[in-house]
């Protein structure tokens, strides 16, 4: 009897929990809907420029989470303009995207780094008579966020960034930092350097930058795994940003959008130009403009110039690629891939990037991307 009553109570409570849970979920849902209808209004005017061509059916894609926010916007606009087409970008990781691409289960893959030679070799099995190529599509600054109450702007250069993340500089009032920030009152706080705890393309890009721009102070290979022994770790860009926001004296790296959405101040980098470069979409584009194409044939993999001294160029950038077959794409998705990537590479598609905290690909390189997309077969 007593047992039964207890079960009854439990059932009621579970029911209550389920109902409130459902309410919370629907609340989220309606939020999304209002956002959707709001931007649908703007879309109608813009939608005319999207060339749908013979696109149709379902296009599966997968890969880098660094370009997720840009992809979400693109997919939403594209599907509003081209009815009957479904684009499904699964934001997982670059590694998973490339594995899926080489198994032939996706139309294209997103990746933070260009295909490695053995991955190109493997792609020849999927792309009949062709191979996988990289199309640079989304650029973005990696912001170095910090938490120092009372310090509104902070300038660092590549060697100090390297020493901070290698825990060689332990205090905020270290002479090396003070020299770069004359007139700023730096506190005597311990530096808490945060990095990503899981393997990440962002870590690899930071490693590439430090390896090129501060070769004497950063001796590690640029890998997805954090290479240095010291410091603290947190899960995901959001985790690192949350820790930097929470811990006084903390410093960490993440995509610019995380710094903007959480109001975390970002470090300006002294590159040797007349003034230190701030972490903004515009400044990142200036740095990507200094890149050279290192890919051969239709492959447009970029060789970024991390040591650029161009005025206002923020050198700590990452470029994410879309990976497709140059020839031998699957006939059922080819038209959709060409139409969709044609849109993402268009002026309109690239313009959206700035609003989302990313950086557009510079015009010269972008022109080649469009040409290549048109020639896909």
């Amino acid at each position, binding site marked *: 009897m007593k047992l039964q009553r207890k079960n009854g109570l*439990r059932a009621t409570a579970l029911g209550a929990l389920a109902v409130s849970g459902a309410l919370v979920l629907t609340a989220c849902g309606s939020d999304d809907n209002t956002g959707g209808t709001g931007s649908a209004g703007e879309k109608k005017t813009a939608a005319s420029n999207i060339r749908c061509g013979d696109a149709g059916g379902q296009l599966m894609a997968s890969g880098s989470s660094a370009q997720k926010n840009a992809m979400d916007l693109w997919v939403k606009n594209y599907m509003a303009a081209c009815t009957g087409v479904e684009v499904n970008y699964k934001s997982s990781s670059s590694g*998973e995207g490339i594995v899926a691409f080489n198994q032939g289960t996706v139309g294209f893959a997103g990746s933070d780094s260009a295909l490695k030679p053995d991955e190109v070799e493997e792609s020849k099995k999927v792309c009949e008579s062709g191979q996988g190529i990289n199309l640079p599509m989304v650029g973005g600054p990696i912001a170095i966020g910090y938490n120092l109450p009372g310090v509104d702007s902070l300038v660092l250069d590549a060697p100090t960034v390297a020493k901070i993340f290698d825990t060689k500089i332990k205090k905020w009032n270290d002479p090396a930092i003070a020299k770069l920030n004359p007139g700023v009152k730096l506190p005597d706080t311990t530096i808490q350097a945060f990095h990503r*705890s*899981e*393997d990440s393309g962002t870590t690899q890009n930071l490693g590439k930058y430090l390896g090129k721009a501060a070769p004497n102070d950063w001796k590690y290979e640029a*890998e997805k*795994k954090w290479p240095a022994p010291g410091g603290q770790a947190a*899960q995901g860009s959001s985790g690192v940003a949350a820790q930097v926001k929470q811990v006084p004296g903390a410093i960490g790296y993440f995509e610019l959008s995380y710094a903007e959405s959480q109001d975390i101040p970002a470090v300006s980098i002294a590159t040797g130009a007349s003034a230190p470069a701030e972490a903004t979409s515009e400044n990142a584009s200036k740095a990507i403009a200094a890149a050279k194409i290192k890919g051969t044939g239709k492959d447009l993999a970029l060789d970024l110039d991390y040591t650029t001294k161009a005025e206002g160029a923020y050198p700590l950038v990452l470029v994410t690629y879309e990976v497709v077959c140059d020839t031998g794409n699957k006939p059922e998705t080819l038209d959709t891939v060409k139409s969709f990537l044609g849109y993402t590479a268009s002026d309109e598609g690239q313009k959206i990037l700035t609003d989302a905290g990313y950086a557009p690909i510079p015009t010269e390189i972008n022109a080649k991307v469009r040409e290549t997309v048109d020639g896909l077969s």
Partner: protein
Amino acid sequence: MASTTPTETPPEPPAASRRAASTGRVGDKVFLGLSRGSGILLLAIMASIAVFLGYRAALAISENEGNFLTTFDWNPAGDPPVFGIAVLLFGTVVSSVIAMAIAVPVAVGIALFISHYAPRRIAAPLAYVVDLLAAVPSIIYGIWGALFLVPYLGGLNLWLDEYLGWTYVFDKTEAGVARSLFTVGILLAIMILPIVTSVSREVFLQVPRMNEEAALALGATRWEVIRMSVLPFGRSGVISASMLGLGRALGETMAVATVLSPSFVISLHILDPGGGTFAQNIAAKFDEANQFGRDALIASGLVLFVLTLLVNGAARLIIARRKEYSGANA
């Protein structure tokens, strides 16, 4: 068990059991077949998991350039590939031991309070709240831990360092936030508390009324009743409850991944950030790992599998030895 009963027991019980088995009713036979079938199926599934893990693990270990048991690194994508489980084994065991040390006494206390001290009007809602805690998903505990628990534990860590630093274990050598194995242990303790509490409470409620009344009649105080009749009776139940909790602590993934600041070092300074656990490492590395990296992670998963089997086996042994007290026989 079933196969040993006929040889060990005196002649009469086998006759009784044979009678029970041969009532000739179809239902009995079907049920016998069903239960035997599910038992065999379960073993087969376990065996196939072990074979799968073993095969993939063997592939990875054969290519490993480091020592699987003693290397303090995890870099299967490197050249040469190197990975080892020492840090993960250490971190998993230490965080679970901390969790058990905190959770079990508290859980037994709560269970005793609910079953023997609290007025009935309070006991039922309290028991219900404890059960509800078990339904909270671990990622919620993780977020709560990262955003609420970690900042608040900073002060506790400084206090422990100042007054108990001489124990070496509580000596804090690195300044920093409390994203350590100790914090993970506390969080795991909170997570396993409900399951240990609710199983212990059920067992304590099953203590035969006669035992307690007899003790009371002899003039024992309530605490003496608990010490002499409730606790000995419930011991095996509490042990199995703890093992259930330990199983959850060993395999907890998301909460640990959110709260811990992992690094591949072994340090007995449990207040310093660092260390790692099997499940946390798999969650962190799986996404970006290539085929070989995934095989390496599977090899580490196999070790967790073996560890869990050992723990459960040990628990069975302890319980079997105290069978006379088990709730099932009462």
